[in-house]
């Protein structure tokens, strides 16, 4: 898994490539990276999952932990460009009730501004 970060419109964007799974992860996990941005005062986080083919239970745990940490500080965490298959699983497991999933990154960035 490869994570690149960039900023746009006061939003920290995580461009993730590969698979978010335990076996693919490094010691600095996605949640740790999100937390370090939150510690620096950032409150809007966007996970761009365009390059993500699959996630396992560890990956879901990382996304949920990132969501909880952001939300508890009054911030917003959103996902974009998620594959159809993942979206289906997210829907069945009700994750879509909690996570704000946008079709593309531009829409997601706009939705941060509106909020």
């Amino acid at each position, binding site marked *: 898994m490869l994570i690149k970060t960039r900023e746009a419109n006061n939003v920290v964007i995580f461009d993730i490539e590969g698979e978010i799974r335990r*076996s693919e992860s490094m010691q600095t996990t996605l949640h740790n990276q999100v937390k370090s941005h939150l510690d620096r005062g950032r409150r809007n986080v966007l996970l761009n999952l365009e390059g993500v083919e699959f996630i*396992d239970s560890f990956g879901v*745990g990382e996304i*949920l932990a990132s969501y909880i940490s952001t939300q*508890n500080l*009054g911030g917003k965490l959103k996902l974009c460009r998620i594959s159809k298959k993942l979206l*289906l*699983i997210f829907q069945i497991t009700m*994750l879509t009730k909690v996570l704000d999933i946008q079709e593309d990154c531009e829409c997601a960035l706009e939705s941060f501004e509106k909020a």
Partner: protein
Amino acid sequence: MANGRLEKLLNRFADVRGHEAHAALYLSGFFFLITFTFYIIKPVKESFLIGINPAWWPYADLATALLIGFVVALNVRLLNRLPRRIYISATLLFFIGSLLVFWYAFDVYLKSLVSTPVADSSGGIFFVWIPLAIIKAGTVPVFVFSFWTDVFIAMSVTQFWLAVNDVFDPYQGKRLVGLFVTGGLFGGIAGSSLAALMVFAKLISAGNLLLVCPVILILALIMVSLVYREQQHLRETAGAEVGPVQAGARVGYWESFLSVKRSRYLLLLAATLASAMVAGSLINFQFKFAVKSVFPDNNDRTFFVSMFFLGILILSTVFHLVATGRILRSFGIRWALLVAPALLLAGSLSVFLVSAGALLAWASLIRGGDKLFDNTIGQSIRELLYIPVPADIKYKAKIFIDMFVNKFATGLGAGLYWGLYRLSGFAYKDPIANVREIGILVVVFLGLWIVLTRAVYAEYPAVLKKDIRRKWDEGDKAVQQHVDVDLTRDVFDALQSRERSTTLYLMNVFDLVRKNNLTPELKEVLGIKQDEIRAQSMDRLFDAGGEVLFHSLDETIADKDLASVIDLVFLLPSYQEVMGKRLAADAGSASDVDRMDAAKLIGLMVRSPETLRFLERFLQDPSPEVVAYALRSAAVHRRVEHIPLILRQLGNPLTALEAQGTLTSYGPGVEDQLKSVLGDESEALEVRRAVPAVLARFGTQRSADILLDELARRRGDVEQELINALYKLRADRPEVRFREKQVRPELLDMIEKSYAICLSASGLAAGGGDAAGPAAEAKVALDLNVRRIFDLMTLLHPPEDIVKAYQNILKGTRRSGDYSLSLLDDLLDRELKALLFPLIEDLPPEERALRMKKAMRLK
């Protein structure tokens, strides 16, 4: 005057911020001029009333009570039809005009009648009758003038507070109320001084005194114009939040009444004010008896009454400057509410011990006390009690309470006096006997005032909280509410395992079946419907070689009987024996998948020394995926000997969440082991940081105590995790108790740390240069600390209130932020408020730094 200089000047009287200084000054000036006028008129009215027969006294008040309703109706109609600024100006013009009419009636018209010679043969007899007719008719103009005075003060004061409401929000109003009251007190002193001096020096007659008032009211007109010009300016700079009640809002008299009737809080508030007014009205009758008995002469009486009001106002000013703020800060609204009724009750009871010679002194003291409290702490508290009422309802309710309830209460007081006068035969008794009999009624109403005050205060926080809503939900709460995290984890595991190992896949699917979680949608997504699952699941376990056991999993997998059969298989001794060998082979396998299969299988098997030994091995496996499965199996068997291995996994971010879950499944029995890890500085920091969350999940008193004890050691490296855990524990388990003597020092320590950050940041800013980076870092650190302070406060106060207050101060509107500060003002004790407020109030950096230093000195 520049905002800064004016701010400094006004800050002597109240907490005024730069941008609001001009508006505050104009409003204070407006109030000054209103009370200036009133205190010229008031001694004239009082002296006239005391001069007439005591049997007539209540009629003036009763007339006011009966007729004020019509004035209220007219007032409401004008409010509906005119913009606020025009409405107030028009009313002032009406008062100016009517003052000229009264001047004509008292000074010109009556005098001209007396001095007009009548050319008649019976002129001598005629000259005897005319002065008598004027004296008899004089009672009616006195009543009309008395009624007009009541209308003037009621409408003027209501309009003033409506203007305050137009310009400032509630929290600003609360801060500035001291300045307005000061303006009013100075106006009163100026007015009564002028009246007393003029009467004493015989410079002007009472009628001509009324001619001074229109001049002052013209100045008030100018002040109103300045106030609303400043309101426009504030609106432009602060946005739409300023000026909540728009001019032209249509409010009917009936609607005003309904707004009070619908709210239990407003009803209680109205009843409290009414009982205070009835008591005040009766005290006034006691005072009139005492004055009449000592001053039969009109001039002496007018001078005494003027001097009495002057003395009251000077004392009120001194009391207000010295004591009002201190009482409110020290005791809060809760006890400040009781100061006036309790002291008046004690004073009123002493009437039964007072001699006739000391009656005037006693009556002056009691009425003076009533007026002093009313002018100072009473006025401030009344406005504070309105703060939690929504602006539109407050606007309606104030019209009804200020202009109707108050006068009705005065009328009720007059009615009670009237009844007592006739039933008890006051005309035939000494003044002191009359005063004592009235005193019994006064005591009853003061008692009622105290009871109602307690009832109002009991409602106050609830009303305040209605206006503050959460800005966001806690993330974990939202997840708990909508997502079955265990199911989600099992689904993702099953999906992942399908691509890697059929055995693992089937075991995961079996887990889902056993938990009754296999919905049609899940079957679809797991691919169960499409696949024909072969017996490869058992192939590898039994080395059986590809025999088809399940032709279609669709029907069979959801069969509960199947689950029972599989469970029975796991219990078979032969199965244990065979699988023991299989586990040994898998444990030594180089394939992660083999070891994952085995680690997962242990969780399904019956516990034996052999399986536990393998589990121990898998818990130390180099592959985090194997460890994750092993941790879940360890959660099933919950063996003490595995705890150190599980604790070690807390230090690995890839397995930490699983390890936390496993330790949680052990239950509170492992608290002591977790405590020793938490306190052991030689332990890996990541391990120690993961422990508090587990203790929070236990949610026991013991866990809470361990977390607090550790926090008291003040080691910064786990502080955030400890506070997070304490906050979560408090939110999930309200029954757990936190001792104040343990929490408070940590809270104060956190505030001190925040002060240090804040003061160093203001030092950086003052130092100039390129301080943007460090200043931004300081801000982030400060935000984090403030959050920790609020989290800790939830341990001592209702968590929901504290969270709402935090969220609204951080991200709410100015109004909701102000309500939040009011809520905290009500919740927290004096020391905590004094220390916390400089951190969370919207202050300029220099002012914040000053207040922090002052608060630290007080501490």
